[in-house]
């Protein structure tokens, strides 16, 4: 049980449980004073999300919502919030590491009441995990504690290889000695210590299979890079890990995704954070991350650049944009951090052509092309969208 007893762990638990308890004792005081119990929570709406141009971060604004138990529309959510807070609190003081799914299960039960007609009404505290997840976020912004600070684990799928060693727990791991495998990033990346980094940049690849190919081709060795994959939409640990590499080791970060609004969105999450979770940007975002590709000009060329694809390749690989792609592109167009000349051109190009491309299409021109021509060229020519 050594892990449970570690000092860092103990301290984190005490800090978090105290903050939680203080918050809800306030609510209790309201009730004892015969005041309607109200939770004051920063609003997580788009309108209350502010882009800090200096820090290049997406942050929560000053807007607050008052969740009163006496408001019929809010009563259930109020109940859910107190319930979830008490469960997290209980896990903290009992040395547990719950996952968000555990929390969902721990809180889920039926409320059964009989009305005066003898009719039974049954309702669950929550039905789906997205309900309880949303309550967890409420508690994070309410208490200013990230879930990691409340010792809540989540599913992690980020992997890394490269010329560096890290310390995690009591171990030192050499990320250049992973064979054909890779190091799977842990859920609490702040506990990682970076040792002996010998790399010139970080390449984040959206797709795991492309990561495998580049790893197998020895790309990171040849170009002195830390190779990371988020395996799709990045989780929090991968984002924090990349952010720390940038912040602490000062490595430039390049992001390689599909050429479509979903790819841009993944880039955006690495760079800024997600709008619905802007309260965490301050710690998870990497504002200087660069979108390496695939860009519209890689596909179609531009005045100053030959396209990487031939006309015939384009015809075969390009996918017609769907309605939801167009919709998403139009949303993204309005994000302040996409309001740069290059990005506006990129998005407009997409909207005009209604064409998207998966990164695999580039890989299908041949692995050598991808690993030894396309990526190095792009980095050397500073041919990224910023």
């Amino acid at each position, binding site marked *: 049980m050594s892990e449970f007893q570690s000092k860092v762990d103990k301290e984190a638990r005490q800090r978090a449980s105290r903050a*939680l*308890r203080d918050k*809800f*004792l306030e*609510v*209790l005081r309201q*009730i*004892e004073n*015969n005041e*309607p*119990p109200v939770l004051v929570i920063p609003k997580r709406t788009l309108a209350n999300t502010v882009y800090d141009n200096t820090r290049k971060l997406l942050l929560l604004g000053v807007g607050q919502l008052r969740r009163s*138990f*006496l408001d*019929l529309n809010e*009563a*259930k959510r*109020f*109940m859910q919030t*107190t*319930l979830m*807070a*008490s469960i997290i*609190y*209980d896990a903290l*003081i009992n040395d547990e590491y719950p996952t968000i799914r555990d929390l969902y299960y721990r809180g889920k*039960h*039926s*409320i*059964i*009441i*009989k*009305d*005066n007609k003898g009719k*039974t*009404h049954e*309702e669950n*505290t929550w039905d789906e995990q997205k309900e309880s997840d949303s309550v967890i976020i409420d508690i994070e912004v309410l208490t200013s504690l990230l879930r990691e600070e409340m010792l809540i684990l989540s599913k992690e799928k980020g992997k890394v290889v490269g010329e560096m060693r890290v310390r995690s727990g009591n171990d030192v791991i050499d990320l250049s000695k992973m064979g054909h495998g890779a190091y799977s990033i842990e859920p609490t990346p702040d506990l990682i210590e970076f040792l002996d980094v010998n790399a010139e940049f970080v390449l984040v690849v959206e797709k795991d299979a492309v990561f495998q190919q580049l790893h197998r081709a020895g790309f990171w060795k040849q170009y002195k890079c830390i190779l990371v994959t988020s395996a799709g939409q990045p989780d929090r640990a991968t984002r924090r890990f990349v952010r720390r590499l940038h912040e602490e080791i000062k490595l430039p970060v390049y992001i390689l995704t599909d050429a479509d609004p979903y790819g841009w969105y993944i880039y955006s999450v690495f760079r800024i954070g997600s709008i619905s979770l802007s309260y965490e940007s301050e710690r998870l975002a990497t504002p200087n991350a660069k979108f390496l590709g695939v860009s519209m000009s890689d596909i179609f060329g531009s005045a100053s650049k030959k396209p990487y694809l031939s006309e015939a390749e384009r015809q075969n690989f390009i996918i017609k944009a769907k309605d939801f792609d167009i919709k998403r592109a139009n949303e993204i167009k309005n994000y302040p951090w996409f309001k740069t000349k290059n990005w506006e051109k990129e998005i407009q190009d997409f909207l005009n052509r209604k064409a998207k491309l998966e990164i695999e299409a580039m890989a299908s021109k041949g692995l050598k092309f991808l690993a030894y021509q396309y990526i190095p060229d792009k980095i050397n020519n500073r041919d990224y969208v910023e």
Partner: protein
Amino acid sequence: MSTTKEKFSSLSPAEFFKRNAELVGFSNPTKALYQSVRELVENSLDATDIHLILPNIKLSINRIESEQEIYKITIEDNGIGIPQSVIPNAFARVLYSSKYVIRQSRGMYGLGVKAVVLYSQMYQERPIEVISSTIGSKRIYGFKLKIDINKNEPIIYGRYSIENSANWHGTIVTVYILGDWSKSKQRIYEYIKRTHVITPYADFTFLDPEGKITHLPRITNKMPKPPQEVKPHPYGVDIELIKQIIANMRKKGADVKWFLMNEFQGIGEKTAQELLNMSGINEKKKVERLTEEELSKLTEAMKNYAKFRSPSADALSSIGEELIEIGLRSSFNPEFAVAVTRNPEAYQGHPFIVEAGIAYGGNILPVEEPIVLRYANKIPLIYDEKADVVWKVVSELDWKRYGIDTFPAPLVVMTHICSTKIPYKSAGKESIADVEEIEKELKNGLMEAARRLKLYLSEKKKEESARRKALTYMKYIPEVSRSLAIFKAGKKEEARQYEQDITNKLKTLIAERLNMKDLQLLEEVKVEAV
């Protein structure tokens, strides 16, 4: 080119309707049996409620032959009876009737029972038998009759009279007819049931060919006001009608102004003068001397004159909201029933009243489209529903606006149109034509009834909503109390002691928030912890 000579010939009205029996509803044995029952029942009702007699009607149908399907229909009523002098013509002369006056009655064309007789004698040889005694008559008279179709005259096969010692009045008719009971059975039952819905003050007994007796007892003694005969309304006249009125005038040599003021509804001296001015006729002109052209001008003036009063409703007999509701409730046992009797309106000079009823919920089974009961001058219409203007109005109504959010719904709609002249689409009296004025009134009537339904439904919803509100808080209070108690105690194991106190405080807050009635509800709710 063929030079066939065309043969021209003349038909008596009896011959015409015999040849074209389907025009009056006798297209085959199935419809003939149904239509015969209708005509007889409607005559019996006209002989009673118009004269403020509570109807007692006994109907029986027997099959009398095994080879051919010949049925003996007998109906007995307690009506005013028919004077013996007119019985032969009333039953055996086509286009002879007591219904050619301006007054609402079920019969209208003076064809009904004669069509029964025509059809009767087409396929079997027994004459119709009529037994009748008028009110106060010392004797009861009996006749056996057929129609001479070529001459359109009664043939009397037998007559007799007996003493009326019991002071009985009414009419008993027996007629033999080629029919098809198994195919018409359902419609005949439907007809009788629906007739009873609209005449809940009548008592029906029905013996069917299978020996089954159905008794629909009187539900109320209240009866609608009977209709009165009235003079014609000037808007509804045509040149030929004016000519006829002139021909039938008792006062000979009257001038045109007197004529206008005395032979029509609602024409006073001022109106008469204005009409004469409009048509350029001298008020002193003798009415018999009016030229064709003057008659035409006068008719035109009467059509164009905008200021007539509405036609008199004296000639009408609506059922009334109370009786309709009684009928709906007793027939359907609904959760809610409402009826609306509209004010009289007129189309083409004919006064009419629309009544609409709605029944909802209770024992009514939910259906995809409202069940529609159509009535006209107190008779139910069964066939040709979708061709009727009533269906048009019902199906175009936006029921969502009246609280019926989705179909299937347990909804019965009833409409009644009464008029001195119902604009049937055919002489079979099955569906009503699209007359703009009637359509509008139907719509208004239904909307008025539907608004009351809506009121009822929304009251019901409001009560439910208050109860739900209280329930919501009561559901969540235990959860909130339990969670906050943990924070108060600092650990779960010691939290229980604080729960009740938090719960009570929260209840007090809720009580302040909701009004007393809701609070009562609150107290009534039992929360079962899990």
